[in-house]
């Protein structure tokens, strides 16, 4: 199986860039979707050509010496060992080439750092292991959601064929209007993450306790994908970034729908729910938010991720557990889940309190609402 696959790879290469393969082989930058990414691409190509020329020149000399100055063809060694003119030249000329490269690079650096006059400001928060988006300023202000991987576990573990967007698909991507300057503020709740959309040429570390920024202006509509690029623990490979760039009218429509939805979900908070309903819903919320650390068995992965089965907190007073889930626990991987709705939180807390042998009281959405600060 392995062998035949290896052969297939070699055959694919021989056939010319794997034309028979189901997926095009990516070997260069993603097609730029912003001027910044285009500038970076151009800069890279300029430098690559300079390098190719120098490389061929230097190793042309070396391989000529290997060919012509061999002992086996009777070449006698000369005994020179310095030449001041040559040595000065090969110090000064590279320095001049470097200045020539640094000039255009400097212009791009300065443009890249200019995050002023943004049309839209979005805060991106890295969590272990998902992204939170808060629209802070501009159209859509106040919208806030969490974005998580939707690739099913079976695909990752080999139980199902892998989809085309394997590991690059999320439930809610960031949505921005085309042609607008978007300032991205990054921060993190636990450890350092890094937010990156290659097609925009925008990458910025998300650092817990600090806010940093970058920006992009997408020049065409479409869906653009990247991945977290700073090692952030176990599931580092499983927190992709998706940005959907839409036309301005479509963006305005989306913002309207989103706001309407938010006001609807605020209404169910007062309703009391049956235990079975809470547990059923809670199991889904748990699978989406908690299972990576606390495991399907509720046993966690100590010491970083404590067990919930038999836990004092889970079997203790309701308020303590609600506060922990709402606010997180500082200096641990346990982050705040306040972005979830009151119903979702009530459901997942009730689920943990009645699973894996835990037998504690259920929690209603109204109780969550009361504890929110």
């Amino acid at each position, binding site marked *: 199986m392995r062998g035949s696959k290896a052969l297939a790879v070699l055959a694919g290469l021989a056939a010319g860039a794997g034309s028979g393969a189901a997926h095009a082989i990516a070997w260069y930058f993603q097609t730029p979707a912003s001027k910044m990414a285009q500038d970076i691409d151009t800069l890279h190509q300029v430098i690559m050509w300079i*390098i190719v020329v120098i490389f061929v020149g230097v190793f042309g000399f070396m391989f000529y010496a290997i060919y012509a100055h061999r002992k086996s063809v009777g070449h006698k*060694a000369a005994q020179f060992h310095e030449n001041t003119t040559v040595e000065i030249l090969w110090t000064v000329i590279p320095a001049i080439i470097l200045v020539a490269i640094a000039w255009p690079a400097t212009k791009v650096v300065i443009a890249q750092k200019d995050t002023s006059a943004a049309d839209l400001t979005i805060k991106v928060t890295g969590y272990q292991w998902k992204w939170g988006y808060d629209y802070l300023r501009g159209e859509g202000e106040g919208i806030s959601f969490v974005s998580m991987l939707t690739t099913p576990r079976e695909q990752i573990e080999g139980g199902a064929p892998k989809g085309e967007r394997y590991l690059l698909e999320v439930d809610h991507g960031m949505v921005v209007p085309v042609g607008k300057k978007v300032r991205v503020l990054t921060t993190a709740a636990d450890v350092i993450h890094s937010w990156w959309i290659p097609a925009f040429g925008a990458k910025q570390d998300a650092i817990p306790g600090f806010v940093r920024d970058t920006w992009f202006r997408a020049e065409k509509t479409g869906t653009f994908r990247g991945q977290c690029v700073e090692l952030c623990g176990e599931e580092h490979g*499983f927190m992709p970034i998706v940005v959907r760039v839409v036309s301005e009218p479509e963006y305005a429509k989306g913002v309207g729908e989103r706001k309407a939805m938010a006001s609807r979900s605020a209404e169910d908070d007062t309703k009391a729910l049956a235990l079975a309903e809470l547990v059923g819903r809670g199991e889904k919320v748990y699978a989406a938010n908690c299972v990576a650390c606390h495991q399907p068995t509720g046993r966690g992965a100590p010491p970083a991720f404590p067990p919930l089965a038999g836990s004092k907190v889970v079997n203790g007073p309701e308020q303590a557990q609600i506060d922990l889930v709402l606010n997180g626990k500082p200096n641990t991987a346990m982050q705040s889940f306040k972005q979830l709705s009151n119903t979702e939180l009530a459901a997942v807390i009730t689920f943990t309190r009645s699973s894996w042998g835990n037998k504690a009281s259920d929690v209603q959405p109204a109780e969550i609402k009361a504890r929110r600060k």
Partner: protein
Amino acid sequence: MSAVVHDHSHGHEHGDHHGGYSGLMRWVTTTNHKDIGTMYLWFSFTMFLVGGVMALVIRAELFSPGLQIVDPDFFNQMTTMHGLIMVFGAIMPAFVGFANWLIPIQIGAPDMAFARMNNWSFWILPFAALLLILSFFAPGGAPGVGWTLYAPLTVQMGAGMDFTIFAIHLLGMSSIMGSINIITTILNMRAPGMTLMRMPLFCWTWLITAYLLVAVMPVLAGAVTMTLTDRHFGTSFFNAAGGGDPVLYQHIFWFFGHPEVYIIALPAFGVISQIIPAFSRKPLFGYASMVYATTAIAILSFIVWAHHMYTVGMPVTGQLFFMYATALIAVPTGVKVFNWVATMWKGSLTFETPMLFAIGFLFLFTLGGFTGLVLSMVPIDIQLHDTYYVVAHFHYVMVAGALFAAFGGVYFWLPKWTGRMYDETLGRIHFWLTMIFFNITFFVQHFSGLAGMPRRIPDYPLMFETWNNISSIGAFGFALSQLLFLYVVLKCIRSGAQAPEKPWEGADSLEWTHLPTPAPYHSFDPQPVLELEERP
């Protein structure tokens, strides 16, 4: 350095010269620089195999998308330990081994300056390595944070993190002691007539490296100690909630980490500067400029650290400063490459295994240097930071650079060390296998990196599959080729043909011109008075 041989002070070929002990205790108690050099080299090869097996676990998991062999947490432990073991366990001790063997016999000294401390600096290493490996058996396993040990991820780790921190303390102590020994030996124990500017370049590169080590190992020790107190004693050096800053860790780490790159590279430059003239039968071109370039690289290495951190959100002036300073390193590095090529130019070249590795080094290290220039440019680095492009870049510098130089050095000095010749045919086969499989493994990683594959991930999107297939196949070929190296060395030691007094026609440093082959257990005691020709 064509020398006028005046004093053949052959060592005592008889008697109680192993210090009264035999068997294992000889090695435990030895203060002889040659014994200690040998132990360093075997230790580093052992760690090279251990780190190599970890690399194979990584490559096996990455052969195809999906999780097949290990879980993500263990994968992270593998990447962390592979990095730490290769850097601190394999490459650094290898060059300290060369330093121990060669510096005294290249400068005409009877031994290293602090012989007992030399024994101690070596014997710390096995315990440090053991502690590092024991971390796998701590609750929670070894740390899965990457060899850079970035805070605050380190705070989440189990007790394995503490094992690793203490192992780094021990490794650092060993390095500092070794460096003090090297500095003292070179500055005080040169034979009369061996002026600094007549020393073989290998001694020069090690002198400068030793200063770098003394300067930066304490910085690393500070960084990991702060991590330790953040973990256990309530300090907040790297915790924003307590007034600290996670990025401060990165600044401190890379203030160590960038000079560390040159700590690994400079001794490799030294080895190459011995091999290329020998097989070109021509003096090293631009000796003085080589010394100045090495010094310039060492000084610049202290002011470029933040080029590892372009994406943390530095001010624009910071980014520009580090970009210019980093690009500047290309100038002295270029001088070195030009000097090596000029040494070969109009020489009388032969291509025994050491020369093959030196040429392989020259070609591939320069390629790694060029990708370094690409990465020095802030905007391009922002696209490539933390991708496989960076992985490819530093493996070209570390493997095709340092490791190739170490292989070349072993083949070059084996006759002097053992009095026997290695099998030239097998040596050449080892070179070509290593060369080919190295490039299969790492060249393709430039492409996956450009296309956007992040490093340190156990699973990846489908568009990177082809590159990872190829890279994994290359890695297994590369690993198997190194078993051939072990066989060649063992065969040389056990049954190699008697080495001639001067196996390499063009080699002209003291160990070749003033000592018999193999080098006697005690050499240059008393020290010779050298009448070396003025280095023009």
